[in-house]
């Protein structure tokens, strides 16, 4: 299959996903029960994106002290909890990772 064709079809499908419920519920109200379920979309999806990024290194789960990302992520989570500041969370999290990796190299 031509790459352009694959790309355009994927783009159309992705756009259809994004548009789907916005159009589906254009003229009728969302059932209240569904409303309740949808409240949990953000924490569910974002946690599902984050966890593999910090727990999995090279295809396997790393829970030991070798996992510098896990430590840095915990520090970032504390900053996010206390400050609710996106910029500060990213900067301190990144600094934490670089410092932890530098320390690990020393030993």
């Amino acid at each position, binding site marked *: *299959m*031509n*790459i*352009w*064709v*694959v*790309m355009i*079809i*994927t*783009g159309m*499908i*992705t*756009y259809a*996903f*994004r*548009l*789907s*419920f*916005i159009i*589906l*519920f*254009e003229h009728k109200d*969302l059932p209240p029960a*569904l409303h*309740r*379920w*949808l*409240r*949990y*979309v*953000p*924490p*569910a*999806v*974002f*946690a*599902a*994106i*984050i*966890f*593999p990024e910090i727990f*999995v290194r090279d295809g396997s*789960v790393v829970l030991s002290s070798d996992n510098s*990302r896990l430590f*840095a*992520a915990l520090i*970032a*989570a504390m900053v*996010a*909890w206390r400050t609710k*500041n*996106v*910029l500060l*969370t*990213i900067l301190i*999290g*990144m600094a934490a*990772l*670089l410092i932890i*990796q530098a320390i690990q190299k020393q030993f």
Partner: protein
Amino acid sequence: MASPRSEFFSGIKAQLPILIGVIPFGMIYGVLALEAGLSIGIAQSMSFIIFAGSSQIVATQLFGSSVHGLVIILTLSVINLRHMLYSASIAPYLKPLKPLWKWSLAYLLTDEAYALTIIHYQEEDPATENGKNNRHWFFLGTGLALWLTWQLSTAGGIFLGVIIPESWPLDFTIALTFIAILVPMLRDRAGLATATVAGILAVLTLNVPLKLGLVIAALAGIITGVLVETKS
């Protein structure tokens, strides 16, 4: 009620810190696309035809392999399936808008734009469903800021290459961005249970074919949240 102008600019402003993570991500995509043998035209067009970072990165891997086109479409679509959840979640707030707004904002419904916009819509006055407000301008500002940055940073990766040393773990900024968004959301037991179950399941299902793991994990997390909420 905030004016369209002020909503638009606060949307851009909210997106600015997140762009720190988006810029290296876009540049990495650009470099990977060329390394996989894609032409400059295809690499850059993908950024506005698909406009979804993680699926674009996977696309570079698949286009470089001998995987059949239909399998590529299926895999990339499953990765992007989460946008349906975003669509459902944001739909009630967009209901009063004209079709042109809906069709345009849907195109801008990325992870980052969704996260910031849903937080903004949920702030105070949650009963704006049928009432009028200008918060869609916030969505537009935040979505356009991300769109423009994504196009420019993927172009940067394509035309300039990445000058960042490999020892710099810049891909970590994506995880940090979502940590910054997620953690302040976890205000009750149900939300915490949702995130924990979804996160653990996402790790356990990492090897499920077609990248279905993320959607399975997210759905399990949502069910958990509702169950915990019902019990308490």
